């Protein structure tokens, strides 16, 4: 082997001594460079190209990661990017109903508003209605049908079910269809067809049962329905433990009617008086002129006594209740009775009891007072609550007899929210086929073999008849997000129908169309229906007479069977946030504070302060203790909240919590109070008696958004007067602050140093009537949806960092002298309650604007205090200097952050679909606050500008005001002299520094610091009976 120098060839060409190659190899770049032109290209060109190439490559590499976005190939005519479309539809969850208008952007629903055309729901919304839009985008929803827990396709599952159903039919076993109250006539027909085919039974139940009331009406009127209550016509309202403003079946409308009966001004100095007898402090009690805390167990005695007093005065037969002559406060009942008698035919007596006999006595009272046909009308009976506890019990006995072949749970979750749940759970083990149409794996569907996930109501066609002859529609506002099928389609298929539910619906409506006898074509009739979302047929007034069908001896024996207890009584209730618990996995509801206790992310035991003292409850700042009690051998441990106004000897626990299978947000929040109810009772009884509470001395951190409950004697925050004073003087109760100067006392505006702002075009102002606001909190959720306000979770609420732009401050009255600062911190034992919605006051002399070092918050030429997120550097000086403490800081990044996964509208792709594209999702480190929905103002102005006109009043409305069922919030432009706000506040003129408001009740909160807010509050007027 020679040590010859190794040769490396540049390529095969060199080895072969290719001539062409050798010639080229002399050049510096032997290969042909693909630069334009010929070989004459200079090195400079190469360097130029290379330089450009490198630069281009690096620029390309800097580009943001590619996100998948699919543009329209052909733009649908009805969709214009950035222009919202509105569809009339109907909210329906559980037994609840609300007529709504859905705002969609680029094909996805982003906001639900009330349908102002509806006479059933009155145009407002509730917190649940507002929140339901996020439930549509809940990632816990099932993505397709499940058979024995495994994903499958529709054909498979339908074949399986039909096969089984045939077998069950031939075996003679029963088929049960369980649902909440169905107020949809077409759905009801479909269910009826199905049960006819399979020898089935349809059982309806409600989370809060109205069985007693329905049965009583059945016996008094022969109609098993709830009548139409008109609180707006009532002068005297007496409620016995019925939270008609809160957890009732149509609280939306009730709030509206109630507010109407209490709207006062200089020309109308009349208002209703509300008496509330209740154990828990509900918002009905909080809005009552007289609230009488009583045990729920005593309620029937009070009602009977009231009947007796009235019957005595009118000269009718009394019910013998001598046994309880000492048990109750006769003076109160006599007062109530005299008020009622003075207003016979203009009053409502109502009770929340589910005991048929109680409701019979209530009917007897209303009959004595001639209220039927006037304030209580059976001609317009409700279909929203039809639940039948007796049928549930017979279902249960069929279960225990192993006589049930199949149960179909139609959008209901009785294993969680029915008082019979423990028994049903045992009973259904023997059922051959359990079918659920739940949208998720919940407490019931997890035990089912077949799950056919129902589409969300925003993806479905449906019709409703919440009140007889008052119709309403549901139309899909988005294509189905998942492989779901609305149950109507399923049942049609199983009953052998070939057509779709849409066709079925239309066919059904052709029959109604024929009744209307219009000249228009069916298509235009149909289009009109879908456009308006509601339709009313003329009611033929039927003569519905009260007939006394219950004998007095029966009533007497019922009364005498009543018992009094010396131990604690538990009163369960639904609150206004999570309510029945169906939408537990909705973080907006979980974080919405209870209107009374201001607690969120928990349910709790509420006790009277005196009882708390007996139990040695120690509470601190955001901390409390855990109480424990036993019901039927089950032990429950809940944190305690000391609640002024809670009847002594009672405690309250909210239903709707303690879900086990709702999703990561709602699971294990609080304790399931449905389980506390007596499952041996023939009907659902919300009261449980004879409980012993013990303090187990365990401390617990409870998240409250407000921990000080009185106004500390500060009259410039809450002003109130009484009706009798108001009649004498419209200015009564006015707190006027004067500044002492060398020239005597002056109004703050007279000596202002501010130059004021000029508002050449618009001047946006809001008024909030404290007399109308019932504290329901719909506005707070509406704002959260509209403005992409994040949810922060329990831990951050404990750190007092909730982000709500609008909150409702709830104040209790205090008995002590205004100079006793320590004593003022404590509420009265049975306090008067005031709700005060509080948001950015859009001050004309805004303290926040002057202190921002970078001018990130500025004043607009329309009176708005604007927040420029992009400019904000987050010094928080503005928030410190805000006297109303309405500014909210982004302490963390709340979007795309695993730490805040409960904020599901910003932390998963599905949830993000709910975000309003017109509103920035704020980054960490910036301040935010109410903007008066500036995006809506802007959109309204643009629309008007395009049409070369000024915006019309009502066209531009803020989210909170449009949600408000009682219309306590009014928003508008006071430059428009025809506007509602201009007239409401009776504007008498303005200069640069002062707005002259003629309305006597109007005042600014903290008027003396002269920040000159653009939000005006109208003084609260209470209608207490003169003693």
């Amino acid at each position, binding site marked *: 082997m020679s040590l010859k120098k190794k040769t490396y060839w540049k390529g095969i060409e060199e080895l072969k001594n290719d001539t062409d190659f050798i010639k080229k190899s002399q050049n510096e770049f032997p290969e042909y460079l693909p630069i334009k032109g010929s070989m004459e290209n200079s090195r400079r060109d190469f360097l130029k190209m290379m330089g450009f190439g490198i630069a281009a490559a690096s620029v390309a590499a800097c580009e943001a990661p590619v996100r998948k976005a699919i543009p329209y190939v052909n733009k649908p005519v009805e969709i214009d990017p950035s222009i919202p479309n509105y569809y009339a539809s109907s909210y329906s969850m559980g037994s609840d109903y609300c007529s709504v208008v859905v705002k969609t952007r680029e094909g996805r629903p982003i906001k639900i508003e009330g349908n102002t055309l509806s006479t059933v729901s009155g145009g407002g919304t509730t917190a649940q209605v507002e929140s339901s839009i996020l439930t549509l985008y809940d990632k816990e929803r099932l993505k397709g049908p499940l058979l024995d827990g495994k994903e499958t396709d529709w054909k498979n599952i339908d074949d399986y079910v039909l096969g089984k159903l045939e077998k069950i039919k031939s075996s003679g076993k029963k088929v049960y269809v369980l649902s909440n109250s169905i107020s949809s006539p077409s759905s009801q027909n479909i269910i009826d067809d199905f049960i006819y085919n399979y020898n089935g039974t349809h059982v309806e139940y409600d989370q809060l049962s109205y069985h007693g009331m329905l049965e009583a009406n059945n016996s008094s009127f022969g109609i098993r329905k709830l009548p139409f209550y008109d609180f707006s016509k009532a002068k005297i309202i007496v409620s016995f433990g019925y939270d008609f403003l809160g957890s009732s079946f149509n609280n939306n409308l009730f709030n509206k009617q109630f507010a109407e009966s209490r709207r006062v001004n200089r020309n109308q100095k009349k208002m209703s008086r509300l008496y509330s007898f209740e154990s828990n402090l509900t918002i009905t009690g909080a809005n009552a002129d007289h609230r009488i805390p009583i045990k729920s167990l005593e309620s029937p005695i009070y009602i009977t006594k009231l009947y007796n007093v009235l019957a005595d005065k009118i000269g009718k037969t009394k019910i013998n209740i001598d046994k309880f002559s000492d048990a109750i406060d006769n003076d109160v009942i006599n007062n109530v009775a005299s008020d009622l008698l003075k207003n016979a035919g203009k009053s409502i007596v109502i009770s929340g009891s589910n005991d048929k006999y109680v409701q019979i006595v209530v009917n007897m009272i209303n009959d004595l007072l001639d209220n039927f046909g006037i304030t209580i009308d059976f001609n317009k009976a409700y279909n929203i609550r039809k639940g039948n506890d007796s049928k549930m019990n017979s279902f249960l006995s069929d279960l225990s007899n192993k006589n049930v072949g199949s149960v179909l749970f139609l959008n209901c979750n009785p294993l969680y929210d029915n008082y019979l749940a423990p028994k049903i759970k045992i009973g259904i083990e023997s059922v051959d086929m359990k079918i659920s149409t739940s949208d998720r794996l919940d407490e019931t569907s997890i035990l089912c073999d077949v799950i056919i996930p129902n589409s969300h109501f925003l993806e479905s066609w449906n019709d409703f008849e919440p009140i007889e002859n008052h119709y309403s529609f549901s139309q899909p506002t988005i294509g189905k997000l998942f492989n779901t099928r609305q149950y109507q389609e399923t049942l049609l298929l199983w009953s052998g129908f070939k057509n779709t539910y849409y066709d079925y619906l239309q066919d059904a409506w052709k029959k109604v169309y024929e009744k209307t006898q219009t000249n228009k074509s069916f298509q235009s009739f149909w289009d009109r229906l879908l456009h308006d979302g509601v339709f009313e047929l003329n009611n033929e007034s039927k003569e519905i007479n009260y007939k006394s069908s219950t004998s007095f001896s029966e009533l007497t024996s019922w009364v005498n069977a009543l018992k009094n207890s010396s131990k604690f009584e538990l009163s369960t209730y639904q609150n206004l946030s999570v309510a029945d618990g169906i939408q537990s996995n909705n973080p907006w509801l979980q974080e919405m504070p209870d209107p009374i206790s201001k607690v969120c992310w928990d349910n709790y035991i509420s006790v009277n302060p005196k009882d708390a003292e007996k139990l040695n409850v120690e509470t601190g700042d955001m901390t409390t203790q855990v109480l424990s009690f036993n019901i039927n051998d089950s032990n429950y441990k809940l944190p305690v909240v000391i609640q002024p106004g809670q009847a002594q000897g009672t405690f309250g626990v909210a239903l709707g919590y303690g879900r086990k299978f709702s999703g990561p947000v709602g699971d294990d929040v609080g304790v399931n109070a449905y389980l506390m109810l007596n499952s041996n009772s023939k009907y659902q009884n919300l009261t449980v008696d004879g409980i012993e509470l013990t303090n187990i001395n365990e401390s617990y951190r409870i998240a409250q958004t407000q921990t000080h409950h009185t106004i500390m004697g500060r009259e410039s925050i809450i002003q109130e007067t009484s009706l009798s004073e108001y009649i004498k003087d419209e200015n009564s109760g006015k707190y006027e602050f004067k500044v002492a100067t060398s020239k005597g006392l002056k109004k703050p505006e007279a000596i202002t140093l501010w130059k004021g702002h000029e508002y050449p075009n618009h001047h946006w102002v809001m008024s909030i009537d404290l007399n109308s606001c019932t504290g329901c909190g719909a506005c707070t959720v509406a704002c959260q949806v509209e403005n992409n306000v994040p949810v922060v979770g329990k831990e951050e609420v404990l750190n007092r960092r909730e982000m709500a732009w609008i909150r409702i401050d709830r104040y209790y009255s205090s008995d002590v002298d205004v100079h006793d600062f320590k004593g003022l911190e404590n509420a009265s034992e049975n306090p008067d309650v005031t709700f005060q919605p509080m948001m950015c006051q859009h001050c004309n002399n805004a303290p926040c604007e002057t*202190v921002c*070092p970078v001018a990130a918050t500025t004043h607009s030429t329309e009176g708005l205090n604007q927040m420029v997120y992009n400019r904000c*550097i987050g010094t*928080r*000086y503005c928030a410190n*200097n805000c006297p109303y403490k309405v500014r909210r800081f982004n302490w963390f990044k709340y979007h795309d952050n695993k730490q805040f996964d409960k904020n599901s509208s910003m932390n998963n792709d599905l949830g993000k679909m709910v975000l309003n594209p017109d509103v920035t999702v704020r980054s*960490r480190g910036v301040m935010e606050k109410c903007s008066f929905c500036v995006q809506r103002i802007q959109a309204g102005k643009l629309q008007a500008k395009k049409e070369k006109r000024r915006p019309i009043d009502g066209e531009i409305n803020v989210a909170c005001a449009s949600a408000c069922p009682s219309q306590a919030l009014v928003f508008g432009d006071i430059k428009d002299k025809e506007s509602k706000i201009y007239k409401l506040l009776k504007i008498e003129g303005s200069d640069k520094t002062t707005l002259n408001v003629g309305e006597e009740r109007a005042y600014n909160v903290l008027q003396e610091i002269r920040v000159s807010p653009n939000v005006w509050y109208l003084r609260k007027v209470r209608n207490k009976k003169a003693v």
Partner: protein
Amino acid sequence: MHVESKLREPLITGGKNLHDISRDVSRRVEEKPSLSWFAALSVSLLMLSVGGYAVYRTLWDGIGMWGLNKTIGWAWDITNFVWWVGIGHAGTLISAILLLFRQRWRMSINRAAEAMTIFAVICAAMFPMLHMGRLWVGFFWALPLPNTYGSLWVNFASPLLWDVFAISTYFSVSLVFWYIGLIPDFATIRDRAKLSGKKVSAYIYGVLSLGWDGAAKTWSRYETVALVLAALATPLVLSVHSIVSMDFATSVIPGWHTTIFPPYFVAGAIFSGFAMVLTLLIITRKVYKLEDYITIRHLELMNIIIIVTGSIVGIAYITELFMAWYSGVEYEQYAFYNRVTGPYWWAYASMMTCNVISPQLFWFKRIRTNIAATFIISIIVNIGMWFERFVIIVTSLHRDYLPSSWAMFYPTFYDVGMYLFSFGFFFTAYLLFSKYFPVINMHEMKSILKPTGDKIKTK
């Protein structure tokens, strides 16, 4: 030539001559760092790194790491800021105002006091920076820089912007003043290093001394510059804390909105500044054996300033209470009622005890000339001054106008960590200063050796 009464106590003891001064001061720069110095530096660096973690988490995760909430938007951050700015008042006061008043006793303490001022101002400036939600933009948006946003400008009406100007001006003037004073002493060290053949230090201190030649003309220019800077710095001593106080005084929050704040804050600043000077110098003179230059008389004179300013502060506290009552404004009344008896009563009580009661002990000559007592009280005063700012900020915010928003503030580890970070920085900087820079102004000491040295006095 300055002539002083023999009745006055000598300002330099121990029979020092000019060479002794150079030697005693420069020796500390020239010798190898001691073990105790290393130990102290390690502790400081540890504080710096633990605090650094808190800073990192705050910047990475957000201000939410602190205990602030919707009601209380400032707490430890601005408390620390005002506290450090206050401490940063002594140095310039000593070197500028006392220079103008021809107080010779300032000469032995002004160097260290000025260094402390500069470090304290840096510590102070940290907090307004770090308390911003978006430091990365706030860093330059808070400055009136030309930009591409059209007419977008800073808000000159905002006291926070005034702070930016006040602090940056004060810092630059203090830094220049301090450095100019150091130049002749750097030259001394340079010359000594040259003589002993240390080339590296001769070079470094040569650069630092900017070619000081000690010529009469140079001295003359030096004196002029010092006097001009002193005149410039004097109003700053008063203005900086006045402006800082306006962060509160111009607001609408009861407890903040008071016209008494500017003088009250300046007095408080001098009060805490002197206390910090005392704390540091008592240790420095002991460790560096500088008892002959920083004498008991120096300490006593500073203690007297503490009594005066402490009493002013005390009067201010009582005036606030009186005004709250006299004004008849219910919010104001409640704010002060709550300060004294509310959930933060202990903070108010600590403030009163530390700031008003403890300095009154200095009325006793035995106490004000006792080093241990002085040391303890100087620390107590600074604890009290921290509480003063905490009380003003947190108790005013936590219960202001609407009771619905009333809340409590609880600090987290990260609040404490930020404070620790500033301490870590401060001590690290001070340790480096005391090792590598002359802690006593040599050339000025030499100028007073003749009239006030004990040799002459005892003659």
